[in-house]
């Protein structure tokens, strides 16, 4: 094995030596649509190309859904990209299983683990499949509650009082009684609602419940914690907390509603402060100092902690035949300098240790600090559990909250999907 990699490296070296003047093109497949991120990446690519003569980075773009649908075919074609985006979880595991992507464990541990030491260990862990690292961590995120301070004041609700799920429900009632839509919900896309079910399950069962369910121990996803999470969610649904027509609302519409000040609460990403502005009717949205945030509250008698967090774990995957330059670029893109550059523009919560300090925007910085103090970071369930089970979680979350499905049936459906896959 060692010999083979050495041999491979030697050939690679020989090839790169003989073609050192010729261009190596790193093909980088991404799905970014944010022009600011694009500009920052352009800067990073320029820096990389300047320090690595003869290497060119070519960006290839696919839209989100197209990316997901096309990737399996692309990876098996003769022209796969060298570098592409991942959300970790079940899809990454599936890609790893087929051998279409590169095992990066050796590269991570080379030189006494120099590369591994760059990143937050929880994130490296999130991109590890059966002990092997398959992606370089790039960014992370935190899902938490954001609220409109003015509307809270109008309804006489103090965010500091929301300590438990029961408090939260009381606050929702109070806001509704004040004639304000309590929560903006994106039921049309389903996954925004899965944050509720996911967080509630985390608060009810803690990490232990998830570990057991994933190991197919005990009652799996039909165990008490998951049923209770459904019941908690159903209790929220009964209050009819969302805007009219939320079952057809897309995520941008949902953000816009919050940005327009038409709903008091949003369970959203760390980037909510910006996104609500983009989605708002006036293109500006709420002033930043009018947005407050609080962590997803605890449930009474639950095993979870307030510092257990849910959010994205994203990284860059290398395909099997990617040239060594692709790895160099991926490492460059995620090194502290590049990450600080991105963070200083408030574009990401970086994966590299210590880079989060560069974040300027207080609300984003707050999220980064929350993540740094995280006791357990759970990836989005619709990624983590794999696309098949994940979509079932999304589906049943909406069904529960809209009163179409009992929490018990929902838990059973998730367990059925899980059993079919594992």
């Amino acid at each position: 094995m060692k010999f083979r990699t050495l041999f491979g490296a030697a050939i690679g070296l020989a090839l790169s030596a003989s073609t050192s003047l010729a261009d190596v093109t790193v093909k980088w497949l991404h799905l970014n649509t944010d022009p600011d991120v694009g500009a920052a990446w352009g800067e990073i690519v320029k820096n990389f190309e300047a320090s690595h003569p003869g290497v060119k980075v070519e960006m290839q773009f696919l839209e989100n859904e197209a990316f997901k649908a096309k990737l399996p075919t692309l990876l098996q074609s003769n022209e796969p990209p060298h570098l592409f985006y991942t959300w970790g979880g079940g899809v990454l595991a599936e890609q790893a299983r087929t051998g279409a992507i590169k095992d990066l464990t050796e590269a991570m541990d080379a030189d006494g683990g120099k590369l591994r030491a760059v990143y937050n260990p929880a994130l490296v862990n999130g991109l590890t499949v059966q002990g092997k690292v398959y992606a370089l961590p790039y960014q992370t995120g935190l899902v938490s509650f954001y609220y409109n301070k003015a509307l809270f004041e109008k309804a006489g609700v103090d965010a500091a009082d929301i300590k438990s799920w029961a408090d939260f429900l009381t606050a929702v009632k109070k806001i509704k009684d004040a004639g304000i839509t309590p929560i903006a919900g994106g039921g049309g896309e389903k996954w925004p609602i899965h944050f509720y079910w996911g967080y509630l399950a985390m608060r009810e069962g803690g990490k232990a419940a998830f570990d057991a369910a994933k190991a197919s121990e005990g009652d799996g996803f039909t165990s008490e914690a998951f049923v209770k999470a459904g019941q908690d969610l159903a209790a929220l649904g009964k209050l009819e907390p969302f805007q009219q027509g939320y079952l057809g609302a897309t995520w941008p519409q949902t953000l816009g509603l919050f940005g327009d000040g038409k709903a008091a609460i949003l369970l959203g990403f760390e980037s909510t402060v910006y996104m609500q502005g983009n989605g708002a009717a006036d293109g500006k949205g709420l002033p930043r100092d009018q947005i407050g945030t609080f962590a997803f509250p605890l449930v009474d008698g639950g095993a979870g902690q307030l510092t257990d967090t849910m959010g994205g774990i994203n990284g860059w995957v290398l395909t099997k035949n990617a040239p060594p330059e692709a790895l160099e670029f991926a490492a460059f893109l995620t090194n502290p300098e590049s990450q600080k550059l991105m963070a200083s523009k408030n574009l990401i919560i970086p994966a590299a240790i210590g880079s989060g300090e560069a974040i300027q925007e207080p609300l984003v910085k707050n999220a980064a600090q929350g993540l740094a103090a995280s006791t357990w970071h759970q990836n989005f369930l619709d990624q983590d559990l794999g696309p098949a089970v994940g979509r079932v979680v999304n589906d049943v979350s909406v069904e529960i909250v809209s009163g179409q499905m009992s929490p018990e049936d929902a838990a059973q459906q998730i367990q059925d999907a899980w059993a079919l896959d594992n």
Partner: protein
Amino acid sequence: MTQTMTAARAPGHSGRRRNNGTLPVLVLFLPPALLIFTLFVILPMGEAAWYSLYDWSGYGLPEKFIGLKNFEVLFRNGAFHQALINNGLIMVVSIVIQIPLALWLATMVSHRIPGAVSFRLIFFMPYVLADVAAGLIWRFVYDGDYGLFAAIASFFNVASPYVLADKNLAIYAVLGVIVWKYFGFHMMLFIAGLQSIDKSYYEAAEMDGATRWQRFRNITLPLLAPTIRLSVFFSVIGSLQLFDMIMPLTGGGPSNSTQTMVTFLYSYGITRMKVGFGSAIGVVLFVICITLAFGYKRIFMRND
């Protein structure tokens, strides 16, 4: 004598000529078409049938053979039942509402009256529009916050309806868009059919004192029958393939209430990375299509 000789030689001669003439043509022109047809139609169909017997994510090669389990799961799936019902509903609405509407409009705009051509153009316009664009446009129309429906509702001072978010209404909203989108196409077919009907029939009927309805009932309808049968055929096949307009409109939701077979295939097969299961849906869809297409042609279009 010469006559009999030529007569005797003629059949043999013409027979040889046919061989000479068609064989090279066959050799030259059949393989490319056959190859393309095999490569892009027959082979994928066979592959889909094969994949449908596996639990396969789309990565690597299918290895986990599960027999007919995909079909079992499929036929028990509530969303699939809904998709079948919706496909049936779309067919019925196409035949009962869309085609009569198209026929009625066609009889009006096929006359040489001023403005007929521009009306034809206007009625045909929705069909020219891309399905996805039409879906997006109607999403805005139906929008309960900023859409046309919201504006109408606020004009009459009633609560704004959120039709696409209501699982009991969404499918009717979708049906409305389908009728709007495709009636123009059928209208054009009917106009073409109407123009091929000999005017003298109408003149004769008029002289005999036939009413408008009698003329329509006894001349137009029978002579247009082949076109109508063709139109129904297109409706049936089109409704089975409906996909790209539904995705931007509702994506099959809420609660799978607007799922068609193809959107069901997409959301349960492709986005969930269950290519084996998706193939099973494809196989069922294929069987339904083939049965309907050939059955219909056999029964209704035998003489066309």
